[in-house]
């Protein structure tokens, strides 16, 4: 991969791309000036609050809002009647499939309340206190129904039915009776039974994972104002303001052009802010009250009413020859979708065996509804669960055959040309390089003591491209204004500014990047699928091409030269041959001074549907220690090696590796939704939803592998999602190494660990 891939570098020869630049939006974030969702206010705004169902499953017989509407200070009350019903048509939203009939029902319950916390009504009032009192005056008649939470129970024939019009798709013949199984999907490669016939060793295990939440520290917040002619402005913390605009326009029957959405700074999303919760309510309330309406979720509402990922039951059966060749891989995945269909079981099915070159693969997946908040994407949605199960079985095969776990993975690793279980052959990929990098670390070669264990696991995510629109404008003094349309959560503006600087040959600090609202650029798909740096940088290159072509044309006019007498190189239009004696090269700054005289403002709009997203593979290594008397697990050491293709900004790529690893540590050890028998969530807060704190984890060492992606001008691969895939398997494998017990249920919390140790009489120091 040539370093600049044929792209001109900065005038000073030093590249902005790949350097650890200070992010241009950093100053506001370290001084408290940066404005997140709840920091926006408008004069005369009302406060919006939502009335949520206390029941996990109930028919809504009637809603009487008269007393609430009569309360002084209440300016608007909305219910299901304020949202026209929608047809059931599938559309993408973030990384999940959703249909509008479900979206409108999730935003505001219609026939039934389908989970505790489901929105049933909302009010807008002149103060928080009045809004809270108004909610208590809304009289909702519920007919409470039996509920079901666990995925296996939800699949049982006699389980309480959430939707009496839900018939399992993907099953032949088409079932007549409705069920909680929305969809069955299946992929096949070769003949898995024949494969098992050739196996010397077969391992068949079942795994169970609990629902977990993305855990972003900033609760959802939205501010909306609707004027008499329907012109609507929304400020909201989201991963995709164009998607919010589209959903709100559809749900409220408005022209997309009438709605303008500004993405505020976003306090973390991880896939959970690709869905609309408050925006449609705030717009509907503002429409009725004719005043701006601000709505902010409490932490309890975030846990009860926003979309965590699936809890799941996964069976994995693998066969291998005695020298370690995988000959067959079967898996059956049952994922919770929450109240409406659309769990990430499909990507889970595709990713299960993706890291490995196996001739015979058969994977079945079930998308199952249950009385929980509708599932939303959580970083490589579906993949951590299925790959945890496969990596656990791979580890067991390695130990039973006495083969080094890295060696076993190396023997079976997917390479360029390997046919993925989900069909197409891989291009150049970096799994082997990540395995080799781990093998060479001092961490891999350090001895451990009793009750300590080391685990390794690999992981994969597709990454996507998608519709992206950005703009570059050269200002009068030659500085560059960059506008992107995908919300910047973790350093995107720094990465894009570096690309723009190198493309146009201006210093990095002369580029000012901002995130434009929906009125400023063409359609942008959302920040998700690890796409924003990949697609954004590709679009910046296109925008820069247009500008460079324009500058070449202006130079030709100025110098009365033909195009073949000039070229763009190292940040300037340069005269060639004889012309070089007569004229000096012109940089962007030079053209900016004469822009008016040579045709007007200098700008380029990059408009693409980014194709060629290269998958990113990673391998994680973890050491941990178990206290046999209490079951407590301490993470001693952690190393992440992952293929970034080309790291536009190394520090923020490392940050993705470290953040994903620690989310994985939480998922593996202590995070879970705890439900009572009453179907209600018992730990809807940061006290008892135990996310890792600073003192729980060591430094997370990172190895930046760079196997270039040929389809990207700089070789970039998306990196944001793969880091959360390997930790679950790596930690489970380390637990087996430390205790001799194969833990097949997440989280591996102290009560479960101590019980397993005690059952084997191992709970002594």
């Amino acid at each position, binding site marked *: 991969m040539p370093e600049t891939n044929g792209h001109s570098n900065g005038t000073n020869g030093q590249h902005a791309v790949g350097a650890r630049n200070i992010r241009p939006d950093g100053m506001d974030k370290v001084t408290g000036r940066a404005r997140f969702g709840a920091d926006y206010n408008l004069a005369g705004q009302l406060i919006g609050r939502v009335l949520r169902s206390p029941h996990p499953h109930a028919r809504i017989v009637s809603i009487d809002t008269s007393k609430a509407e009569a309360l002084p200070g209440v300016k608007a009350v909305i219910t299901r009647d304020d949202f026209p019903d929608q047809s059931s048509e599938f559309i993408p939203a973030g990384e999940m499939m959703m249909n509008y009939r479900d979206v409108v029902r999730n935003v505001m319950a219609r026939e039934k309340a389908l989970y505790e916390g489901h929105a049933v009504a909302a009010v807008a009032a002149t103060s928080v206190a009045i809004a809270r009192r108004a909610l208590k005056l809304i009289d909702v008649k519920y007919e409470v129904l039996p509920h079901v939470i666990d995925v296996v129970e939800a699949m049982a024939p006699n389980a309480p039915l959430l939707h009496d019009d839900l018939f399992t798709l993907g099953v032949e013949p088409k079932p007549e009776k409705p069920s909680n199984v929305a969809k069955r999907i299946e992929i096949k490669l070769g003949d898995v039974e024949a494969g098992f016939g050739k196996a010397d060793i077969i391992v068949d295990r079942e795994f169970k994972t609990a629902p977990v939440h993305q855990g972003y520290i900033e609760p959802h917040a939205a501010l909306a104002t609707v004027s008499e002619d329907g012109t609507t402005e929304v400020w909201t913390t989201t991963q995709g303001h164009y998607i919010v605009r589209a959903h709100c326009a559809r749900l409220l029957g408005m022209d997309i052009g009438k709605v303008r959405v500004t993405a505020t700074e976003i306090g973390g999303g991880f896939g959970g802010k690709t869905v609309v919760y408050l925006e449609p309510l705030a717009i509907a309330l503002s429409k009725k009250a004719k005043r701006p309406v601000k709505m902010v979720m409490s932490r*309890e509402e975030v846990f009860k009413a926003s979309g965590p990922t699936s809890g799941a039951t996964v069976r994995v059966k693998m066969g291998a020859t005695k020298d370690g060749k995988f000959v067959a891989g079967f898996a059956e995945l049952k994922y919770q979708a929450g109240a409406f269909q659309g769990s990430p079981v499909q990507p889970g099915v595709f990713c299960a065996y993706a890291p490995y070159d196996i001739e015979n693969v058969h994977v079945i997946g079930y998308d199952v509804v249950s009385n929980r908040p509708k599932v939303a994407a959580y970083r490589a949605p579906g993949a951590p669960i299925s790959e945890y199960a496969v990596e656990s079985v791979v580890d067991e095969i390695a130990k039973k055959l006495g083969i080094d776990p890295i060696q076993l993975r190396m023997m079976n690793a997917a390479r360029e040309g390997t046919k993925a279980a989900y069909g197409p052959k891989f291009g150049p990929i970096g799994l082997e390089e990540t395995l080799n990098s781990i093998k060479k670390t001092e961490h891999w070669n350090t001895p451990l003591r009793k009750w300590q264990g080391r685990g390794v696991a690999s992981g994969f995510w597709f990454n996507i491209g998608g519709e992206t629109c950005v703009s570059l404008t050269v200002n009068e003094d030659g500085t560059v204004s960059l506008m992107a349309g995908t919300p910047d959560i973790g350093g995107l503006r720094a990465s894009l500014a570096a690309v723009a600087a190198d493309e146009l040959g201006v210093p990095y600090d002369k580029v000012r990047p901002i995130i434009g609202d929906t009125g400023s650029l063409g359609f942008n798909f959302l920040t998700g699928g690890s796409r924003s740096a990949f697609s954004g940088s590709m679009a910046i290159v296109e925008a820069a091409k247009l500008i460079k072509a324009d500058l070449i044309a202006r130079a030709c006019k100025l110098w009365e030269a033909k195009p073949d007498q000039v070229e763009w190189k190292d940040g300037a239009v340069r005269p060639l041959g004889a012309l070089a004696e007569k004229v000096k090269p012109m940089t962007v700054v030079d053209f900016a001074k004469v822009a008016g005289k040579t045709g007007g403002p200098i700008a380029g709009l990059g408009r693409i549907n980014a194709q060629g997203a290269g998958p990113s593979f990673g391998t994680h290594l973890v050491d941990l220690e178990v206290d046999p*008397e*209490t*079951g*407590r697990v*301490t993470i001693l050491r952690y190393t992440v090696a992952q293929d970034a293709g080309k790291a536009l900004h190394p520090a923020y790529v490392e940050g993705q590796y470290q953040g994903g690893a620690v989310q994985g540590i939480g998922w593996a*050890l*202590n995070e879970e939704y*705890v439900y009572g028998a009453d179907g209600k969530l*018992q*730990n809807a807060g940061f*006290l*008892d939803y*135990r996310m*890792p*704190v600073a*003192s*729980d984890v060591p430094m997370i060492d990172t190895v930046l592998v760079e196997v270039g992606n040929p389809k990207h001008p700089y070789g970039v691969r998306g990196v944001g999602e793969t880091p959360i895939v390997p930790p679950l398997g790596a930690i489970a494998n380390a637990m087996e190494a430390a205790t001799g017990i194969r833990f097949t249920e997440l989280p591996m*919390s*102290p*009560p479960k660990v*101590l*019980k397993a140790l*005690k059952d084997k009489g191992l*709970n002594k120091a």
Partner: protein
Amino acid sequence: MRYEAPDSLEGAVALLAGAKGETRVLAGGTDLLVQMRADILDPDLIVDIKKIPETRAITEEKGGWRIGAAVTGAELKEHPRLKKVWPGVIEAANLIGSTQIQGRATMGGNLCNGSPAADSVPALIAAGALATLAGPNGKRDLPVEDVMLGPRKLALQKGEIVASFLLPPRPPRSSDAYLRFIPRTEMDIAVVGAGVSLTVDSAGAVTAARVSLGAVAARVLLVAEAAQAIVGSRLDKPAQDRLEAAARAACRPIDDKRGTVEFRIQVAGVLARRAALIALDRARSN
């Protein structure tokens, strides 16, 4: 909701005794405000006691120490001498929440919040501390183990508040220790808590002991049998086993989002033993 901040115990008592409706005392507020925001509590009157000198003072008294009910964990940690005399009580108070919580949380609030999982209460009970109450008919002392009757239920009469704690004088070669189990390293509510205070003779044998367990019953327990299990011993293996068995026998825990019955019983024995061994080391070295 009314907020008052009297500057004398009498003022506070008068406000609380005279008030109709629901009243709450505000010291650090790190439990009270959480419950108010979560609509669990909606008091009509809040009485802030932080302006009352007695609740904020740390003084030596009759060879022991009097600690105001509204002294914060951070202030306890920074006190030059308390940590040497009562390491267990101080480390228990310092385990209540994060650094930020430590800046506000008090032992008075921790006790009166009425949670069986309170961190400072097992250490105070093991220490044999007295709670000094101020009320409409004057002051009275109550052993800390008698203040809490059950979850959220206190032995305080209307208008009574906890003004301070009295830690008794320490015979030589005495010390204490507090341990708790939480799945993370910080920030969790104790799944199990164990406080042990003991005295050893010149030969290193235990002459007196008190063992208290938190989060394993409807209130914080003072476990006499566990103390007897180690008095007279040098805390050798058999004595440790007797201590573990006695601690487990006293547990009446529940299953909840933090731990199972089986887990709490098992870990209560382990923590009681470990805390006793730490207290023993400390006692022998001072």
